[in-house]
C-alpha cells in the first residue's frame, strides 16, 4: 500500500495527539480556542530561542538523517533507498487543488482589526528577510538595506528590526559588517541560485564561501530538474550535502513552487526537503512567477505540521516573492495561525522574503497608530 509508510509515520504519533485534548493543568483556554493544531512536541518557543541562532536543538551531525523525533527509525527507512523514498512520497495523501484554494480563499476573508492588526504588523516586520537579489547590487545598496533592516522606521524606535537581510553570497561580508552588533541575521542565497544548474561541487563551494563570510542562514534551491524527472534521491542527497556544508548556519530549502506547478509536487518536495534536514522550507526564489501564493503556503504549512507530528521536529516556512502589501502579509499570518498554529507565529518558524512589503507594513502600522492615512514618501525607500 502506497500510503502505508506515511500512515505509519503519522499514526505513530497519535498518542501525542490525544494528549492535546486535555490542556495541561493550570493552562487557561483562551476564549476562542487557538491551541496549536495537531501534535506539538513539548519543545517550547522559549527553549528554542534560548539557543544561539543556527544551532537549533534538532541539528544533527552532518550527512546523517536529521531527526530528533519519536520515529527516527521510520524516517531512516524511508530514505534507505530510491525505491522506498519514491514509495513514501507517492504515498503522501494528495492535495485537491480546488479544496486547498477554497480553504485559503475563506481564510483570506478573516478580518484583522485594531490591536490584533497592530500586533500582527509588528510581527510581520520581525519576520521579514529584507531582500535584494539583483545583478546590480553594490556594497552601497547593501549598506542602506542593512540600515533599513536595523531600524525600519527611523521615526519610531518602537519598530523592531527585521529578521534578516538576504543577499547574494559575495555580499555577505558587506552585510555582516553593516549589521554588526545588531540581532539581524544575514542570509545568503547559494547553490547556483536561482536556477540551481551547476555541479554539486560548485554549489557546495558557493555555500561554504557564504558561510565562511559569516552567513547565518543559507537559502539553497533544490534541483527542480531532478525532482520533475523523478530523481528524488538526488534532490535529497543534495539537501543533505548542503546541510553539511552549512555547518552551524540555518538551512532554508527553496522549492521554487512555481516550477513544481502542482500542490502534490509542493507537498512531496516539502517532505523531501525536511527529510534532508531543512530548517526552513521556502516557496520561491522570487525569480519565477508565480512565486508565493496562499494555497502554496497552506500546503507547506500542512507539511511542516504533519512532519512535526511524525518526528517532533519543527521546521519553519518562508514565503517569498510577490508579497508586497501588509494586507497580503496578514493573510499569510492567518493561514499560519489556522494551519500550523500559534507556535509558528514567530520569526524562527515563519519568514517573509520581501523588499517593498516592509514599507507598506510600516505605513499601515503608522496609520493604525495615528488614525491618519500616510504617504509613501514619509518612509525611506531602502
Amino acid at each position, binding site marked *: 500500500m502506497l500510503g502505508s509508510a506515511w500512515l505509519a509515520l503519522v499514526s505513530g504519533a497519535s498518542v501525542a495527539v490525544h494528549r492535546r485534548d486535555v490542556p495541561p493543568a493550570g493552562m487557561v483556554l483562551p476564549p476562542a480556542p487557538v491551541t496549536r493544531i495537531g501534535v506539538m512536541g513539548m519543545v517550547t518557543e522559549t527553549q528554542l530561542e534560548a539557543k544561539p541562532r543556527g544551532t537549533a536543538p534538532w541539528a544533527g551531525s552532518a550527512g546523517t538523517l536529521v531527526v530528533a523525533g519519536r520515529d527516527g527509525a521510520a524516517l531512516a527507512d524511508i530514505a534507505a533507498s530510491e525505491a522506498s523514498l519514491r514509495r513514501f512520497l507517492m504515498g503522501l495523501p494528495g492535495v485537491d487543488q*480546488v479544496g486547498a484554494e477554497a480553504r485559503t480563499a475563506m481564510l483570506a476573508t478573516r478580518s484583522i482589526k485594531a490591536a*490584533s492588526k497592530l500586533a500582527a504588523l509588528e510581527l510581520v516586520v520581525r519576520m521579514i528577510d529584507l531582500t535584494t537579489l539583483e545583478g546590480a547590487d553594490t556594497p552601497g545598496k547593501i549598506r542602506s538595506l542593512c540600515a533599513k533592516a536595523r531600524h525600519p522606521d527611523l521615526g519610531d524606535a518602537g519598530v523592531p528590526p527585521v529578521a534578516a537581510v538576504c543577499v547574494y553570497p559575495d555580499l555577505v561580508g558587506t552585510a555582516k559588517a553593516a549589521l554588526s552588533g545588531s540581532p539581524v541575521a544575514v542570509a545568503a542565497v547559494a547553490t547556483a541560485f536561482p536556477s540551481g544548474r551547476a555541479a554539486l561541487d560548485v554549489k557546495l563551494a558557493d555555500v561554504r564561501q557564504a558561510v565562511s563570510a559569516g552567513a547565518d542562514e543559507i537559502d539553497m534551491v533544490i534541483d527542480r530538474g531532478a525532482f520533475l524527472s523523478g530523481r528524488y534521491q538526488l534532490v535529497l542527497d543534495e539537501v543533505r550535502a548542503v546541510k553539511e556544508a552549512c555547518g552551524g548556519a540555518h538551512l532554508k530549502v527553496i522549492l521554487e513552487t512555481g516550477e513544481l506547478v502542482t500542490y502534490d509536487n509542493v507537498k512531496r518536495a516539502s517532505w523531501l526537503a525536511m527529510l534532508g534536514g531543512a530548517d526552513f522550507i521556502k516557496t520561491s526564489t522570487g525569480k519565477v512567477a508565480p512565486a508565493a501564493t496562499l494555497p502554496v503556503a497552506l500546503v507547506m504549512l500542512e507539511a511542516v505540521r504533519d512532519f512535526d507530528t511524525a518526528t517532533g521536529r519543527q521546521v519553519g516556512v518562508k514565503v517569498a516573492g510577490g508579497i508586497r502589501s501588509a494586507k497580503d502579509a496578514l493573510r499569510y499570518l492567518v493561514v499560519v495561525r489556522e494551519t500550523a498554529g500559534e507556535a509558528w507565529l514567530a520569526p524562527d518558524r515563519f519568514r517573509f522574503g520581501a523588499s517593498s512589503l516592509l514599507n507598506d507594513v510600516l505605513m499601515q502600522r503608522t496609520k493604525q497608530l495615528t488614525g491618519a492615512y500616510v504617504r509613501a514618501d514619509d518612509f525611506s525607500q531602502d
Partner: protein
Amino acid sequence: MNWEYAPAPESRAIVDLQPSYGLFIDGEFVDPGDGSAFKTVNPATEEVLAEVAAAGPADVDRAVEAARRAQHETWGPMSGAERAKYLFRVARILQERSRELAVLESLDNGKPIRESRDIDVPLSAAYFFYYAGWADKLEYAGFGPSPQPIGVAGQIIPWNFPLLMAAWKLAPALAAGNTSVLKPAETTPLTALVLAEIFQEAGLPPGVVNVVTGAGATGAALVAHPGVAKIAFTGSTDVGKGIQRELAGTGKRLTLELGGKGANIVFEDAPLDQAIEGIVNGIYFNQGHVCCAGSRLLVQESIAELVVEKLKARLQTLRLGDPLDKNTDIGAINSPVQLEKITELAAAGVAEGAERWTSPCALPEHGFWFPPTIFTDVSPSHRIAREEIFGPVLSVLTFRTPEEAVMKANNTPYGLSAGIWTEKGSRILWMAQQLRAGVVWANTFNRFDPTSPFGGYRESGFGREGGRHGLEAYLDV
C-alpha cells in the same frame, strides 16, 4: 505568539428594522384581517427584533385570490421576455441591497455573517439571474413546444436559509409564469419581507408574489386552499408526508424537499487535508442546519483514528460566537426548540453508548448555542446514526470496503446527499452510481449553484430545484 483576532463586527446600522411588519398581499403591506402577531428574536441574543403578522385563513384567502388574479390578468398573459426583465431587476436589487440582507439574515437566523454575506445572499441573486433568463426560453427546456404555468403556487420554506430558499422557490415559479403565495418560517420571516420590498422596488405587478408570515397553521391554510394549484415545500420529512397526505386526491401538484442523513465517505487515499475541510463544511456549515448535511462520517477503518484526531484539532480552530462578527465560523442555533432537539439527540447518543467529544469552546451567556460535537463508536443502529439532528453534531462510523461503505450509506430512508473522498477516479464514479442520493459531492461538499439540480431520493422528497430540471416543478407537464 498568542495572536487573537479582535472583534470585527459587521455594522447593524445598514438594517432599518421596523417595530412591526404586516403581510404582503397584492403588492401592499397590510395588517392581518383574522390573524394575530408573533415576535421574531435574534437567536444569538434573545433580543426581540420585530413583531410580525400571523396570517389567518382569511388572510391566506386574500393572498391566494390576489395571486390568482395576477396569474390570470397580468403575469400569466405577459410575454416571457417581459417577465424575464422583472426577474433580472429583482436579481440586481438583491445584489445592491446584499449587505443589508446579509446582516438581517444573520440577525434573524443566527448564521455567521461570513456565510450570509458570501453564500446565502449572492446565491439568492444568482438564482434570480439564472431563472430570469429561462422566462422567454421555456419552449427549449424540454417540456414540450408550449409549456404552460400551473397557476398559483403555495411555497412553504424553512428557517435554515430563509432568503435563499425564497429565491429557490420564487425564481423558477415566476419565470414559468406562475404566481406565488410564500410562507416563510415563523422564526425567520424578516428577509422575505425585505424581499417583498424589493419586489415593490422592482415594480413587480401586484399579487405576483404575496408573503404570508405565520406558523404551521398559516402553512396548513395555504396547503388546504382550493385556489392553490401547486405546493412546494421544504422542511421536515414528517411535515412533508402530512402535506402529501393532505393533497391526496386534490389534483394539486407537489414537490417536496425534505430531510436527510447524508453520508460523507472518506477513503484511505483521500486528499486528507481537503477531506477534513469537507467534513467540517459538511456538518458545521450553518450550524448543521442543513438538510443535505454530511451528518454521518463514514471513514475507512485504516485511517479512522487519524481522521478523527485531525478533525478534533481542526474543530478547535472553529470560532463560535457573535454571528455578526466577520470571523465567526459557528453562529447561534436558530431557536430554543431546535436547541432542545439537538440536545436531546446528543444525550441519546451518550445514553446509547457512543463516545462524545465536544470542542472546548466557550459559549456566549445569552442566546441559543451548541458547540461542535463529534460522536465516535457510533453503531448504525444508534439514533444519532439514523435520525436527522439538524445541528452541529457529527456521527462517525467506519467501513472496510467500498461495498460496505455503499451499504451503510444507503441504509437510511433518506436519500438527499452524499460525499466521496478519494483520489481514485474510477472509484468515485462507481460510488456515485451506487449511492442513492440526489446530490453526490466528490472531493467537495455543500456546493450549490442555480444551474445544478438539487433534490432527494426516497423520503428526502421529490422534484428538483435548480437548473433546467427545476422548471419542471412549475410547468404543467
